[in-house]
């Protein structure tokens, strides 16, 4: 594969500029962050080495930590639940709709918009009816006044409202990925199945879904890792509030580092986040290796 033998200097010219920026701005900060997590360091006092105390505080004493972890994992679960639906819709579109590509690109519109815009838009939709909120307006006109509420300030439901916005925004993204996967299944397979008597939903069940496993996996990994890092939307819509009811790991980290100015503790949370992302990426990939081995 590697064809050219070139002097080391040439290689350096090709690789170093990018590698230096990349290591300096991605790897070095992560390592610094791991080191900082061992410090008692805030905006006033000098940093002091305290070993793993920050992690002890995090796991045992921080009342907001485990809820944030739970919200983050729930985020991941909800966003993965959406993907079977996307696959189902993609299979339907492939079978029934002629100009499905146009339809997919319509569904895709929310994906390309900034989370700040999406977040503000949905904040307005969730507003109380007397502030022009659409959702409460719809409920009122359906005669469901008792269902109206201040969606984002009630701790019990605020988190679900955020999950919903993410599902709404990324529906088009996963649909697009699944649809591309479904489209790439060769037509001959379906024709052969037709001869064997499998048509319609039956062919979906025996052909489309099993053959879509690799692309299904891609969506799952993207949704999962994306949810672990979920930040912008929560930040724009609730800032983690009311009273930490919608905190995720990363908003909790941001709050601790940049608002409470507990740099050491914030770094411990950041380290935890990196760790979780690495572990789950490895776990998901190995789970799917087994699934794929079963289906191929």
């Amino acid at each position, binding site marked *: *594969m*590697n*064809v*050219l033998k*070139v002097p080391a200097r040439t290689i350096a010219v*090709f*690789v170093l*500029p*990018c590698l230096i*920026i990349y*290591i*300096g*701005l*991605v790897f070095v*900060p*992560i390592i*610094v*962050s791991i080191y*900082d997590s061992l410090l008692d360091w805030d905006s006033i006092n000098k940093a002091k080495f305290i070993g793993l105390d920050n992690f002890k505080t995090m796991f045992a004493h921080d009342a907001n930590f485990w809820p944030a972890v739970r919200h983050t994992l729930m985020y991941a679960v909800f966003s993965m639940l959406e993907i079977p639906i996307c696959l189902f*819709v993609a299979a*339907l*579109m492939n079978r*029934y*709709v002629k100009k499905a*590509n146009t339809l*997919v690109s*319509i*569904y*895709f*519109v929310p994906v*390309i918009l*900034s*989370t*700040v*815009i999406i977040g*503000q*838009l949905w904040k*307005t939709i969730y507003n109380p009816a007397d*502030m*022009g*909120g*659409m959702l409460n307006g*719809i409920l009122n*006109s359906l005669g469901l006044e008792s269902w109206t509420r201040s969606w984002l300030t009630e701790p019990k439901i605020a988190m679900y409202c955020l999950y919903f916005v993410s599902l709404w925004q990324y*529906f*088009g993204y996963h649909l697009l*990925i699944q649809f*591309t996967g479904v489209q790439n299944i060769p037509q001959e397979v379906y024709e052969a199945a037709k001869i064997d008597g499998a048509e319609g939903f039956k062919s979906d069940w025996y052909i489309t879904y099993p053959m879509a496993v690799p*692309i299904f996996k891609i969506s799952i990994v*993207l949704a999962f*890792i994306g949810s672990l*890092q979920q*930040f912008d939307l929560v*930040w724009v819509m609730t800032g983690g509030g009311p009273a930490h009811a919608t905190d995720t790991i*990363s908003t909790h*980290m941001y709050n601790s580092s940049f608002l409470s100015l507990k740099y050491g503790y914030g770094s411990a949370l950041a380290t935890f*986040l*990196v760790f979780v*992302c*690495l572990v789950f990426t490895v776990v998901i990939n190995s789970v799917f290796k087994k699934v794929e081995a079963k289906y191929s």
Partner: protein
Amino acid sequence: MKGISKGIVYAVLGILVITQIYPLFWLVLYSLKTNEQILGSSFFSLPTTPQWHNYKDAYKSGHYLQYLGNSVLVTVVTLVCVIVFSSMVAYAISRFKWRYGPIVTLIFLMGMMIPMQATLLPLMVIFKNLHILNTRWALILPYIAFATPISVFILSGFMRGIPAEIEESAFIDGASVYRIFRSIILPISIPPIMTVVILTFITIWNEYIMAATFISSEKLKTLPFGIYTFVSQYNVNYGAIGAFLVLGALPVLIVYFVLSERITKGMVAGAVKG
């Protein structure tokens, strides 16, 4: 039977179109109403007379053009750097014979798993010490760094498939490595470069949290951060907020309208290869 199920499918797909698009349409209506209409009337009412002055207000008081210009500048510089740097690295790891190639590949691969938020605090300290906090570099540099892993991955995957004969014959004709890279490899690699451009563009154009953390001066804010600022400052002028959100969404919507097929293809390619 077939007709019925077809009808149901169309109905479901139609409802999905409404749920995905109607909120955006509603925002446009919202942006054309007066405060009284927004607060008083029902959600589907049309604006009695379109309040274009909401747009004028948003445009005038919101530094819209400034934010837009900053976003364009930061995005363009980042894109150029990402293309140049990552295609060079991709070429080196896919075609050169050298000992550390696999390690460098691995280092770049690992970057795709790292959550960007975890670097915010250390980066802020680093930028402060380099005196580039609150300059455009504080955005461009990390944007480049976080865009390179996926770009290198996509480009090197493509370059591995370029037949070696092309380079060999060019080499025999006396072309240097640099020449081969510039005149042969780069032009052939235009399709994956387009994918990289699309992925990077969508990410950077919409990036909010780095901008909000590293930038404080009004003059340097990019569009998403600018929108956020505007909304928090004008929180009672609902129509103008709506107008600013529409203006904020407009550039990327126009780009999408023109290039939708390329963009969807690019996003899929990015997802599949990532």
